[in-house]
């Protein structure tokens, strides 16, 4: 032993110190303690619920008593394939696709300006202006459109002031997307969705564009590319992962929403509403579960494609 001096490895610190020593010698114990609670939460509560959902979708409802029959059956899924239900799925997916494409077009200039030209406080302002609606006041923002689109509301008021009322009427007289008024048509639902999910498209595109060095654009124009060519050949391909990342949100959120079409829109259902109606008044939980499998499957396919396009690097 070393006698010239105090120990090189002094023992310190009571219970906590000894516990800490144990973590050092057996890191697995610490890991287990760290992982245990969240793993229990996500693994049991959330994944468990998803499994319960899956199980539920293989139950069926007894049409006479209205009670859930807890036996394995494909009956509920077969019911899902009825034309009226397929209509709902098709309608929702089309809406999600339209919303996604439109929001990408509107989001791009905002994201491009914020990423390339905005500096200092302007940039901060852009960021906050996009963050606030992204994180909050979902219901209030749906509500705002009920105010705007009402017959006596601000949109009709503004349109009649500039004498464009016939245009609105022409739009509303169109088959399928038209209706008695904007607040009760697909156009209205579309506008609300676009408004709701636009921030989710702006931020990922901006993040992708921030990573494009200015010198690369200079190089492109230096090599003789016209601005349009630079956009097509350089900016757009580099922004694409951001667009795909944003589209994951806009697509997924539109697929599952049932509040917006309930408040602004026609009486024809979207997937989310179908889920809500089946689990609620109808008490048909198995049907609701089967319906909610649709967005899961659609999103799984979508995510798989997005992953292959490298969209996750932009998240």
């Amino acid at each position, binding site marked *: *032993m*070393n006698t010239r001096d105090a120990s090189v490895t*002094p023992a310190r610190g009571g219970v906590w110190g000894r516990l800490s*020593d144990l973590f050092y*010698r057996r890191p697995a114990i610490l890991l287990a303690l760290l992982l245990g609670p969240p793993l229990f939460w996500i693994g049991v509560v959330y994944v468990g619920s998803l499994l319960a959902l899956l199980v539920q979708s293989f139950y069926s409802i007894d049409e006479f008593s209205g009670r859930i029959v807890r036996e394995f059956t494909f009956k509920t899924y077969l019911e899902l394939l009825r034309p009226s239900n397929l209509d709902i799925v098709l309608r929702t997916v089309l809406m999600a696709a339209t919303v996604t494409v439109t929001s990408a077009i509107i989001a791009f200039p905002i994201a491009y300006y914020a990423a390339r030209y905005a500096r200092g406080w302007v940039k901060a302002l852009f960021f906050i202006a996009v963050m606030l609606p992204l994180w909050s006041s979902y219901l209030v923002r749906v509500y705002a459109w009920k105010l705007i689109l009402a017959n006596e509301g601000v949109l009709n008021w503004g349109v009649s002031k500039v004498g464009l009322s016939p245009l609105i009427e022409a739009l509303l007289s169109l088959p399928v997307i038209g209706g008695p008024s904007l607040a009760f048509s697909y156009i209205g639902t579309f506008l609300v969705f676009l408004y709701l999910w636009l921030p989710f498209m702006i931020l990922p595109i901006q993040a992708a564009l921030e990573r494009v060095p200015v010198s690369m654009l200079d190089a492109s124009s230096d090599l003789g590319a016209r601005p349009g060519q630079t956009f097509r050949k350089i900016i757009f391909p580099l922004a694409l992962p951001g667009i795909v990342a944003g589209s994951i949100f806009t697509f997924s959120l539109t697929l599952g929403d049932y509040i917006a079409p309930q408040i602004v829109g026609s009486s024809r259902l979207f997937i989310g509403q179908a889920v809500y109606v089946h689990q609620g008044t109808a008490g048909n939980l198995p049907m609701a579960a089967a319906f909610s499998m649709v967005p899961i499957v659609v999103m799984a396919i979508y995510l798989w494609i997005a992953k292959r396009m490298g969209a996750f690097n932009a998240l």
Partner: protein
Amino acid sequence: MQQNTVLIAMPENARQVSSSQEASFPAAVSLASVSRHFDAVKAVDQVDLTVHEGEFFGMLGPSGSGKTTCLRLVAGFEQPTAGHIAIFGEQVDGIPPYRRSVNTVFQDYALFPHMNVVDNVAYGLMIRGVGKKERRRQAEETLELVRLSEFVDREPGQLSGGQRQRVALARALINRPKVLLLDEPLGALDLKLREQMQVELKSLQRELGITFVFVTHDQSEALSMSDRVAVFNQGRVVQVGTPVDIYERPETRFVADFVGSSNILEPAFCERIGAPSGLWSLRPEKIRLAPEGLSDEAGTIDVTGEVRHVQYQGATRRCVLAVKDTELALAMPAVGVEPVVGRTAHVRWRLDDMHGMKQV
């Protein structure tokens, strides 16, 4: 220690000397066949190493050679998968870093960003429960030691790289460690500051008498600062010795190549130029331009070759000479005759300057 008169050092000599010292008192740090494997990657593999008390010990090697992992094993951030580590004779297996009287200066300095300089330095004392006043007094004293007393109340973000390093040094020294570990201590500094810090670290170590173990990939830094150097390659220690040993008498092709740029004379080449058979290293500065004609001096080798490149480097001039199918590098004082590219040149070196290496 080693005698420079040993012309061709036998690989075992250096180790014999150190093991005879081990017997008298415990080594500051000793590693006994220590390995650290990360799955299939053998970061440190079967390393035996002894650092003596009061020594300035360098661990030199290319990145990924295991030198940093070795340091982290001594500090306790990693635990060996095999073998034992002792610090001043005490086994530290399973002893966490906070219970080892060893402190570390990190490569990125690792100053706590939420504390000012004095709180950073006093951190170890605070953890040990030393009172606030006493903490500050000792911290100021230690900062004086590293000549940074005027920066006591600054935030780390306001300091330059060199100043941050001094804070890191003070923070590690305030605990009066038995061994101070330094991970690439000068790596982030510019050349001028690096040279200044080399001198300061060296004198600080002499003043305090603490054992310093430092890691570097810079061979000139290792040679100029260390009392002894361990050269690492692929997780193993390939040679341990004084800087002179390492430089003059590399034991392997790797050391000869990595530490300074040696000429390696292959057995086939030796045969052709009439040198004794074997694998030899020959330092570029040992080769001199010589007058034409066969040498009448005994114990020298003479060759003629074509000058390929000449590089003027201020004090020296380096040139590459093609001799048969081998290129020889020469370093000569810049004041002499300048070899001309494309011409033939005649060079000579002493047999004694050739050092035999293991056939690896």
